[in-house]
């Protein structure tokens, strides 16, 4: 799947300029997210705190989808199932060992990342529609398995099911037992996840992914290890989905198999595209779309399923007119405004043209190779 090119997009790959400036996003992500989260936790009521906690978790998984699609051009339709895998392992290890939540969360992330690599194996040979179909079937397979075996709820045995006895709830992390605290915790995990991706994008893996997206033959001839970096991307995307599952599991204390249908993976992918797969905050927008929009509708007495219709229209809009998603449009708006201000303060067009295009290249070149 290729996207139409943006006006002003450079035809060549820009070479990253050296210096610490390129790591600036690593500081802006946590600052912006945490500041926003603190403001929200002060202003929002319990319903919205709870909804936005889920949105933060889903945002993590969307960041993984965006990584695969935005960086490598791979369509993976089993990422919501990986949330389930992460949630399953978080619950199972949490009940089995009673250790701190962070360890359960980490094991959930690692397990989902391993499964993510397995899901990604076909990607070494398949691309585009075929990869999408294979991963969608894997998601269908997960739906059948999770409906048959369910999520662990404090029982014994491998599956940990407490079918005819008292079900247990997974306790929240000691740091954050209250609703507001847990919301901040979830946003904190989201920020860490997004920073992890940014770090990858600005170092060797990011450059290798950019080469692979530009063309596998080119990448191969440039000495990029295709197998390693594709598997790495799937592992990272799986890891983030796994963390999302863990955060969701501890939010309520349990998970329900019915919430992990293959259709959810489709929704997640569609809304990641709508949110924007090329900017870090696209994933945040995708999380909000998937969780906050249905809640907003339900809160106003409108059937939550109407959200599906809205999502469909949004996806159509994104594919036709805004391939970089809402996040891309916001960035574009920001650049237009900066350009406007710059042109007003420096009236000579010849003087400002060079730095503006240079800036654009630095902004978009690496994100949309």
């Amino acid at each position, binding site marked *: 799947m290729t996207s139409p090119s943006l006006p002003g997009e450079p035809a060549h790959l820009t070479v990253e300029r050296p210096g610490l400036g390129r790591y600036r996003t690593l500081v802006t992500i946590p600052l912006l997210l945490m500041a926003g989260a603190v403001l929200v936790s002060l202003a929002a009521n*319990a*319903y919205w705190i709870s909804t936005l906690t889920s949105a933060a978790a889903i945002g993590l998984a969307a960041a993984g989808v965006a990584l695969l699609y935005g960086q490598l051009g791979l369509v993976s339709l089993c990422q919501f199932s990986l949330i389930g895998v992460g949630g399953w392992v978080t619950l199972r290890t949490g009940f089995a060992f009673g250790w701190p939540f962070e360890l359960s969360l980490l094991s959930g992330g690692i397990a989902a990342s391993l499964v993510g690599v397995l899901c990604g194996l076909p990607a070494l040979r398949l691309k585009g529609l075929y990869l999408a179909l294979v991963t969608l079937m894997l998601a269908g397979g997960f739906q059948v398995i999770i409906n048959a075996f369910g999520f662990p709820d404090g029982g014994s045995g491998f599956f940990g099911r407490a079918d005819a006895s008292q079900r247990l709830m997974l306790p929240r992390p000691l740091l954050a037992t209250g609703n507001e605290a847990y919301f901040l915790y979830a946003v904190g995990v989201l920020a860490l996840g997004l920073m992890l991706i940014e770090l990858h994008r600005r170092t060797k893996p990011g450059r290798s992914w950019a080469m692979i997206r530009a063309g596998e033959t080119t990448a191969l001839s440039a000495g990029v290890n295709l197998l390693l970096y594709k598997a790495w991307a799937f592992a990272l995307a799986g890891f983030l989905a796994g963390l999302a599952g863990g955060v969701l599991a501890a939010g309520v204390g*349990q998970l329900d198999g019915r919430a992990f249908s293959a259709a959810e993976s489709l929704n997640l992918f569609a809304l990641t595209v709508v949110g924007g797969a090329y900017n870090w905050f696209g994933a945040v927008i995708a999380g909000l779309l998937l969780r906050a929009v249905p809640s907003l509708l339900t809160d106003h007495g409108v059937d939550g399923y109407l959200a599906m219709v809205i999502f469909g229209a949004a996806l159509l809009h994104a594919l036709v007119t805004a391939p970089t998603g809402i996040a891309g449009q916001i960035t574009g708006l920001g650049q237009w405004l900066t350009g406007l201000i710059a042109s007003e303060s420096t009236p000579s067009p010849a003087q400002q043209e060079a730095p503006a295009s240079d800036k654009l290249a630095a902004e978009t070149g690496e994100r949309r190779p």
Partner: protein
Amino acid sequence: MKHLILAGAATAVFALSAGVASAADAPKCGLANGQAATGTPINIGSIVSKTGPDDFSASAQAAKAYFDCVNANGGINGRPVNYIIGDDQWSPEIAAQLAAKLVDDEKVVAMVGNSSFVECAANANSYAEKGVIAIAGVGVPRECFTAWTYAPLNAGPRLSTLAVAEHINKTSGAKKFVCIAPNIPNVGAWACDGVTVWANENGAESSTILIDPGSSDATSVVLQAASMSPDAIILSLPKGVMLPVLVAAEEQGLNETIKFGSAASGYSLDVPGALGEAWNGKFVVNMEFQPLDAETPDNMNWRAVMDAHAGKDVPRDTFAQAGYLSARLATEAMLKLDPAKIERDSVATALSEVKTFESDILCAPWYYGAELSRHNANNTLRNAITDNGSWKTVSECAAVNDPELTDIRAFEATLR
């Protein structure tokens, strides 16, 4: 105890007949003074599973009809009830969000008329933490019957499933059972486990088949059950899943050789007609409440409230009976309070002190049982059999012999 139950029921019938007999069609609720309540509203919440595999909202809609009737009849000593219903869409995540909205944001004084497959597990702890008592209409999974602040009006699938097995055992001497239930966490296995435990203690045996309600094939399910050569097959399935199983059984001629019974989920006025002649006198169901068409005073009042305050599209089913009862119970408990002091704490105390809530819709007076760590007050049930296109009640209220009820029975012994 049976005498006491009958005495209780008789008193209830007598007490209500005085008021209802004179005006059979006009619903009677709350203060029944015909004046609209205008005071500060009292927020009461409810969470139901509406959007999803099945619609369980009838419970809350019936409760809403009753509260509307109360608001038109003097309210709670002048204060109207603002009844807020949330749809959890069968998702624990959404159920928890709704609980946060109702309990923390809307500051409801109690939850009334809940009916959900997922809500009990997700919210029981937070209700207990916030001191909110939930008088549910219909509880389905085990968690609805094991929480300290959650008390449903119905008996639950476990008791209902066991009651019909006991009845078939008593009337036909069946010893070998197969129980078929959905594989929903803490619903199916828990319900069938009751039959197994009871069978083991009573010289019978029972096997369980758990099926995925969304994707199971009715014929193969029935053949799998029949291959165990049982005397009786007990279904603990949602109605929409149960009917195809019965049709498949008829195609295999199994209705002639094996007894069939169902938990209360199979009790609906349209089922005997839908099954047809072949099942006449061959299908027993359990009923958690009075037969829907019974002409007893409170059951008639329920229908009158529904006719006056609920649309024609709201089903008049057992869920609605349960919702009506929970709303009536909460109203009567709150009417005893000083209207200026109706707050979460006072309402929780008033609800937890309910010792004898009487209605002819129930077999025995309902109690909350504040001393108990869990609640299952509705545990004496009736059964009915298909009879020429309708249901015929075949057993009077009988106590269910579930060993899991030991704590409940011990508590009831102290009450009487």
